[in-house]
Structures are given as C-alpha cells and as structure tokens.
C-alpha cells in the first residue's frame, strides 16, 4: 500500500516538473512563434499580390511594407486583403485566403487576384499536413508559379476554372501540372481551389465592387 502511494506521488511530482519545464519553454518562445506566423502570412500576401520584397527585408521593413500596401476588409464573413500600388490609391489586386481539405488534413493558402478579377496574380500554400516530398510539394515554387495569369471565369455547368493534369501534359491555359505521386493531394487542391475561386467571383467580388 505504501509502495503504491509512493508511486503515485512520484508520478505526480515528475509530471509536475516536466509539465512546468515544457510550459516554460513554450512561454519563452510563444511570442516568437506567433511573430513568425504573422510575418509568414504577411510575406505570403505580399508575394501573391506581386509586391516586391527584398530577400534581406527586415522584420520592421516587412510590416511597414505591408501596412503601406495592404488593407484588410471583411466581406460576407470572409477576410480579404486589398493590395494597393505605390500611390496608395490604385488597386493592385486582392488576396483571398483559401482553404479546404487536403489528403491528410486541411490545407490553407492565399491566392492573389487581379483588380478586374479576370486572372490570378499568384498563389501560395502555407499550412498543410501533406507528406513531405509528395503532397508537400504544393508549397514549391514550380507548382505555385503555374497559377500565375490563370484566366478566371465563374463556373458554369461542369466547366471548372482550371484542371490539374499529369505532370508534363498540361496544354491549354486552364490546364496545370499536378504533382506526380500525390494524386490525392492534387485532386483535393483542384477541388477546393475551383470552389473557392468560383465563390469569390460569384459572391465576394460583387460585394467588394459595391463597397468601392
């Protein structure tokens, strides 16, 4: 009986110690992790809006650049980022956070759309649980770069905005290379991006135009 009680007390103390240790490390780094995430999203918004950032841009410069060029608005319960030209007046494009189910877990990304909503400026994925080296390659630049200048039109019937084709066989302007070995991730991305883009064109953009 005494032994058993000792075990419980021992386990309790050791759990207390390690839980405190982990919490302390977490607390010490929380701010930094949060900053990393904000910075990452700002960087991605600037990238999909094609607002040039220097490789060596410091943290302050980046948030300054972001504050100068990007305005956040809420439309129909969605957050949308409006990017402005140097003059602060002319609209450069819209950045729309997109997301949907991937193969292993949710995928989050950002898509840049031209001011007249006729083509894609750029796209970037920043959160996913896809297999590194396979589905995880959606974050690689060759995959994202293909979306540049993709023509946009609202979906009518079963005509999607774009299709992913086996790597190396994409021909038409609405066809892009999928990722070899990551068929499930590719089709998941194709499905939710088409859906989100269509939603933007049919719902969000109309509201944005009304507001302007």
């Amino acid at each position, binding site marked *: 009986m005494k*032994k058993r009680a*000792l*075990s419980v007390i*021992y*386990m309790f103390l*050791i*759990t207390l110690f*390690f*839980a405190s*240790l*982990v919490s302390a*490390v*977490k607390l010490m*780094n929380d701010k*930094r*992790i949060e900053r*990393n*995430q904000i910075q*990452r999203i700002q960087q991605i918004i600037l990238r999909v809006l094609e607002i040039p950032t220097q490789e060596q841009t410091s943290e302050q410069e980046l948030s300054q650049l972001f504050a100068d060029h990007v305005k956040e608005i809420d439309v129909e319960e969605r957050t949308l980022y409006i990017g402005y030209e140097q003059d602060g007046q002319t609209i450069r494009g819209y950045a729309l956070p997109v997301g949907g189910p991937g193969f292993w877990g949710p995928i989050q990304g950002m898509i840049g759309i031209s001011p007249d909503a006729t083509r894609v400026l750029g796209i970037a994925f*920043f*959160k*996913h*649980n*896809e*297999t*590194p*080296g*396979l589905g*995880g390659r959606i*974050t690689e630049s060759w995959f994202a770069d293909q979306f540049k200048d993709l023509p946009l039109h609202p979906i009518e019937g079963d005509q999607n905005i774009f299709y992913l084709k086996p790597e190396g066989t994409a021909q038409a302007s609405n066809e892009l290379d999928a990722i*070899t*070995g990551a068929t499930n991730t590719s089709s998941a991305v194709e499905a939710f991006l088409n859906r989100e883009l269509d939603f933007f064109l049919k719902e969000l953009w109309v509201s944005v135009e009304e507001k302007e």
Partner: protein
Amino acid sequence: MPNLPLKKEIFLTGLWKDNPVLRQILGICSTLAVTNLMVNTLVMDAGLIFTVCMSSLTVSLLRKHTPMRIRMMVQTLIIASYVIIVDIMIKAYLPDISEALGPYVALIITNCIILGRCEAFARHNPPVASFIDGLGMSLGYSLVLIAIAFIREPLGFGTLLGFRVLPEGFVQWTVMIMAPGAFFTLGIMVWIMKYFRPQTKFGEEKG
C-alpha cells in the same frame, strides 16, 4: 564505474556494430518517411539525437528512484517532454523546416529507438554511459538516414540538398520519392550489412 575504452565501445556499438536501423531494425517509420529530402533528414536527425541523448540521461539520473512498476510511464513522459521542446524550438527558430516536416517532429516520440535505449540501457547504467549510448545509437540512426537520403533525393528529384546534381534531362524515379523507394533502399542496405557482417552467435547487444 566504466572506464574510457568501455565508453568508446558503447559508442561504437550504437554507431555501427548494433546499428539501430540496420541491425535492430528500429525507427523504421521515420526512416521511410523523411529520407526523400536531405534537409528534412538532417533536421530529423538533429531532433532525434537531442531527444535520445537527453532522455537516456534523464532516465539514467532517475534510475535509482523510479519505482519499477511505473517506469514506462515515467520514460514516456520524459521522452514526450523533450520531443515537445524540440518541436517548439524548430517552430520558433526554423519555421520553414517546421512547415516542411509537418507532423514528423511530434512523431519523434513514437521512434522506438528512444524508448528502446531508455529501457534496455539507461535504466541500468550510470548517466554518462547512458548519454554516450544514446549518442552512439542516434548517430548510428542518423548515419543510415543520411545514406538513404543520399540515394533517394538524387534519384527521386535529381537534386541534393536542393542543388541539382543530375543533368536536367534525367528522368526522375518517382518511386524513390515514395515509401516503396525507401523500403527498397533500406532493404538493400540491411542485406549488404548482413552479408558482410553476419549476426554473431552470441547476442552481443546487451545493456
């Protein structure tokens, strides 16, 4: 108390003689998972080296006080704590790599090498020897992973650490990126190892 040559022996046992991946066939899950890119492999190695060494050290320090019946719970708790610390550190200081590795860092905890070393060695041996044992084992694991990545990344992507090493026209072996490629590579390595150093009759792996 163990003297110096014995420590060298402990180290070399883990690194080569009883290599955890090639001889004990432990830690296979992560071996298959992260070795298609060298960068991911190196970060995984670093995480594992830290976790194994620190866990072995801690388990060894507590070995005289931990009640026998709850020792597994204690070991798991210790390992989990170190893994979470590694995960937080990578998120804070290497955010890009953290994105690339996704869930694998947190999954270091399921690497059998760590619990294996705590249970087989650290709970009977003094701290320094345990630390060295952990170092040897985790470096042995790292060595094999690097070797596999060295084969898989060039054949699968034509690159090494992101730099192109094979000519542009090279047809990439997609199978090398996927799990089967890792199985083949690892299988061939285990085979070669067995061929050149057949298992000795007496099980030398002790601790």
